[in-house]
């Protein structure tokens, strides 16, 4: 037989125990992730901000704090304007031609085939994405090799009667970086649009066909309206990803000839690791970081917050 006081004590002890358990669970389950995230996301951002106010360079030693990096960005660096211009061309060119438009065309074309054939062509277009970057670019270098043995030159010379081999790496470097990135970007759009098209109820197409719509009318009145969300999703996220990535360009052209294919993100990299201007690189990177956070925040509206934040249905710990 327990008294009321005993019961109260048991209850209180229970509360205390569950609070302890909650803290323990928090540490066990989330602790490692939080430590890693803080260490490798928050700390680097802080370091970046701090370093951008120093004169850190090749010696990797900080001798003083200064605003000169920002002065350089806003006044001194004449190379920056063409770099930013090129970045715009590269990002929106790739996005408009490949990631959205061509991805969409591929998705529509492959979904209107039989399943097996459709997957085959989608599989082909996924090859670049499935290949390691070093290898993918190796193939490009071979394809556009200025020698007669280069694949493009072989085709052009033997198939189309071109006289002398082309050196595309020097004559059309910007087109090359757009196409080589676009081949990969298109597959991302293709995957997402394919899934979205598959998600359209088949009856809508049937109804439209019975109502008199031909192939193009069906695309215009059924497919495209259903793809509004996916298209803006791909646009936003691929803009960000094109803006910050430079891996393929670095491998293909090293940013050259001279600075002709050095987009902003690559410019950051080259300033820091080629010229050893780490502080300047950090200052330049800060702008990308800010854009990154902004776009990531913008991306919130693509997610179903309600579902994401849904309350757990078990309350005890």
């Amino acid at each position, binding site marked *: 037989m327990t008294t009321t006081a005993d019961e109260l004590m048991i209850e209180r002890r229970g509360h205390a125990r569950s609070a302890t358990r*909650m803290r323990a669970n928090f540490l*066990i*389950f*989330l602790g*490692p*992730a*939080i430590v*890693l995230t803080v*260490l*490798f*996301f928050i700390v680097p951002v802080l*370091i*970046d901000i701090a*370093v951008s106010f120093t004169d850190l360079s090749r010696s*990797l030693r900080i001798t003083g704090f200064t605003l000169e990096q920002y002065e350089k960005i806003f006044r001194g660096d004449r190379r920056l304007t063409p770099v930013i211009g090129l970045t715009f061309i590269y990002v929106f060119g790739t996005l408009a031609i490949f990631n959205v438009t061509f991805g969409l065309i*591929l998705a529509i*074309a*492959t979904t209107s*085939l039989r399943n097996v054939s459709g997957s085959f062509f989608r599989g*082909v277009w*996924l*090859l670049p994405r499935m290949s*390691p*970057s*070093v*290898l993918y670019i*190796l*193939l490009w*270098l*071979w394809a556009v090799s200025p020698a007669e043995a280069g*694949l493009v030159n072989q085709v052009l010379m033997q198939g189309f009667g071109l006289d002398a081999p082309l050196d595309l790496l020097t004559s059309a470097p910007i087109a090359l970086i757009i196409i080589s990135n676009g081949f990969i970007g298109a597959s991302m759009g293709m995957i*997402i649009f394919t*899934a979205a098209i598959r998600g359209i109820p088949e009856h809508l197409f049937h109804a439209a066909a019975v109502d008199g719509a031909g*192939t193009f009318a069906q695309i215009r009145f059924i497919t495209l309206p259903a793809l509004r*969300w996916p298209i803006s999703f791909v646009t936003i996220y691929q803009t*960000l990803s094109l803006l*910050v990535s*430079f*891996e393929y360009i670095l491998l293909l052209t090293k940013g050259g000839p001279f600075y002709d294919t050095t987009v902003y993100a690559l410019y*950051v*990299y080259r300033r*820091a690791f080629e010229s050893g201007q*780490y502080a300047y690189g950090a200052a330049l*990177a800060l702008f990308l970081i800010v854009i*990154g*956070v902004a776009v*990531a925040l913008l*991306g*919130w509206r*693509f*997610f*179903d917050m309600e*579902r*994401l934040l849904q309350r*757990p*249905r*078990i*309350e*005890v*710990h």
Partner: protein
Amino acid sequence: MAVKATPAVFSAPEPVVDWDVLAARARGLRRAKAVVLYAFLIAVSLPIILPYFWLVTIAFSAKTGVAETAVLWRSMAVVVPTVIALWLAAAFAQSRRQMWIGMGAVAAVAAFAFALLVGPDLHIGNFIFLWEPDFASVVRSRIGEVKGAVQFPNVWHAFGNSILIAGTQTAIVVTVASLAAYSLSRFQFPGRSAMLRSLLVLHAFPVLTLIVPMFLMLYWIGLLDTLFGVILVLVAFELPFAIFIMKGFFDAVPWDIEMSALTDGASRRQAFLSVVLPQVRNGILAIAVFTFIRGWEEYIFVFTFLIRNTNWTMSLYMYWVRDDVMGVDYGVVSAVGVFYLVPSLILYLAAQRYLMQMSIGGVKG
């Protein structure tokens, strides 16, 4: 069989329809549509297939110092008709049995033609790097060039490094992400919603922008040019995305089974281990494979953070082989390429059904 005599309210004019013309037009349109579609897709796919095909043929056929292309075109002459024939076999077969018979016949003819046209040129001499640690010198001496720029480590060393990086990274990411995702999905605690929102930002955050401060940080704590440092960085960078994907998988596990585990006497931790975790096996598999692929393919961070050639991964090995031997021996470069590419492809094919989930995560429909 009551035929209604009531006049229609719509004054439908009795249309004169020539059904046969309509049928003929439909038939023509259907065919034209199929032809245009296939022609388009084949045209845009050839530029992709061709270089990969070239890679493989060179790897298995090129002789030292020659950029062999005759074999490429000859094998294309076998492969292209084969693919088309397989297609036709599949398209015209009336039953599954017929389809297999047709495909088998095509494959047999193709194999014969291939053996005849390409067979004599095939060899595995280009894979010399697999058994000759100092293959670069051998290759150089073969073509009479003596001095080489790069000292190559044994390929198996690079292979081991890549496996070590990818494997360790995968193990840590899977463990940490599963724990964190379970907590975020299933525990109610103060700050949960804020954490989920920041996770959403982090999972889309472009980590490449952090390469400069990360380099400095590794340098200052003495982990630059160590595999351990690179692994830590890669783990952290993969983590938010992996947690996000895993949370989606945990969200899909029915609450009932966890509730019944609790009523059956399990604690939350026991329920997590014995009841919920087995339900998200697919999710774990998906993030494991994709994290492994990322580790295996990783180039830019290892290129920036690893310097000594004993720390080389496969990507760096590939890069330097290309840089050093390129223009000298296409055969060896291709062979290394094939050796590097095949694991990626296999893993991708194994995990392709998760590709969609990994591409868009929890986006609303």
